[in-house]
């Protein structure tokens, strides 16, 4: 899209600093919740959205749009970059009535997913809602996702080879 103008400076701009981490300016907390939201099942986010007491009014600054991202990799894993191939991605940017701008960027073609990520990203920047949403949505999502990872890692570990050496004689 040609009208892809930057909407706002990064999270260190006044008024858009997430309050989860005091004085953070590099988006650490925001990166964490965006990650949780991106990995969450869209139905889960839909349910959370429907459960909000007062669903806020919002405007679509960038309506959900599906496109491509070129995936970069590095030669040998750590060398110079090269283009490996593309993947589908979907993005959406919303602004709440309170002025918070939420950005949703997800792998795949889930337009509703990207919209919900953007909405929750904006809501989590709202100081009056942050704590409750963190507790009811982000914390459990993070725990579940961590659980999935641990489970997958444990499953994989069961195929780890235990070498033993046959000893001849005594």
């Amino acid at each position, binding site marked *: 899209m040609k009208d892809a103008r930057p909407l706002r400076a990064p999270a260190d701009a006044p008024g858009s600093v997430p309050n989860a981490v005091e004085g953070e300016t590099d988006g650490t907390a925001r990166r964490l919740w965006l990650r949780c939201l*991106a990995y969450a099942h869209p139905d889960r986010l839909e349910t959370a959205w429907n459960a909000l007491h007062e669903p806020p009014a919002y405007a679509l600054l960038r309506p959900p*749009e599906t496109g*491509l991202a070129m995936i970069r990799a590095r030669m040998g894993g750590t060398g110079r970059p090269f283009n*490996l191939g593309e993947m589908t991605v979907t993005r959406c940017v919303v602004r709440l009535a309170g002025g918070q701008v939420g950005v949703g960027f997800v792998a795949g073609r889930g337009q509703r997913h990207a919209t919900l990520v953007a909405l929750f990203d904006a809501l989590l920047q709202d100081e009056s809602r942050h704590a409750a949403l963190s507790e009811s949505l982000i914390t459990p999502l993070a725990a579940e996702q961590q659980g999935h990872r641990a489970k997958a890692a444990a499953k994989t570990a069961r195929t780890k*080879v235990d070498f033993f050496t046959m000893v001849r004689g005594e």
Partner: protein
Amino acid sequence: MYVAVKGGERAIDEAHRQLAEKRRGDPAVPRLSARQIGEQLGLAVDRVMAEGALYDRDLAARAIRQAMGDLIEAAFLVRAYRTTLPRLAVTEPVDTNRMAVGRRVSATFKDLPGGQILGPTFDYTHRLLDLEESGPDAPDGPLPEEQSDDADEPQPGGSAADTPKVLQLLDHEGLIEPDEAAGDGAGGEAENGDGTPLEGNEPADLTREPLSFPAGRDARLQALARSDEGFCLGLAYSTQRGFGRTHPFAGEIRMGTVAIEIVPEELGFPVEIGAITLTECDMINQFTGAKGVPPQFTRGYGLVFGHSERKAMAMSLVDRAMRAPEFGEPETAPAQDQEFVLLHGDNVESSGFLQHLKLPHYVDFQAELSLLRDLRAELEGRKTADAAAGDEGEGENA
């Protein structure tokens, strides 16, 4: 000369109707869902994503169904679809050192840190076709324990500390060539390994710029990653049999999920938007040395979408073979000839050019036919004339 020919519409419509019928098969048998294809024919999906050069499991599964299982046709459908989408972003380079591995083996070190992890593999199976459909594959057989209740999205995890790359062990001792500098103009040596300068710091992108020769290693790796697995495998095999031998050892093969990070312009910092499955192969190849450089092993690299070990390994062999000029090796074999490899490995291109032979060439052919008739007539005429002359000659001699 091309002449517009009309009149086939009705036949074409009917042919398409029959194609749809054939695709569906016996209506008494339930239609496959894209989800079923994704879940149960996952490696076909991986191959279509790799050769279609687009990571989207659902799209690849649909393409396979539409192509009736013709994976090259499916890759073509995926390539065609991608042209309808705008490019929204370029990801941060994926970090395969932080891959959440599902499989990781090395043929060079038995007791490598992190261990040999087999994961789901065909290796060690007996390749006996199971006609009884017993066991977990039976239609109503018992599910393997802990049937996956994972979320749909792959969940990356793990950390660099868990599974260090095998080649780093050699790297620490200086026994293998270092990875080329990480591109940021480090040491002012921003070149494509074979002396061709790297334009800016942007790696080549075949989806934007056609290949030009000599192609840098960046362009070569991109082309190999999406090249036809059969073509790549055949070339790799040829190097093993002696056509450009590189004495390879499988240093490490790993398969698993890596996180994808993008820097949205609205944010200015990277955010993780999901994860993809990749298969990576670090091949260790015959050592080489040069003036001032002690002998050391060299590298071949393979990286492919999905779980695709054969392709990743083949890619790493062909990558190394094409690096011949860097090491002053004679270029004598097909796999070392980058024009040969890169211009013929794309199955969408090669299939298109091959199949264009089906298009009407009526006029071309008529021209050839009439030329041939003329030649034959001329020859006949000359024969008759010669015979006549011969008769006369004989007459004279008699």
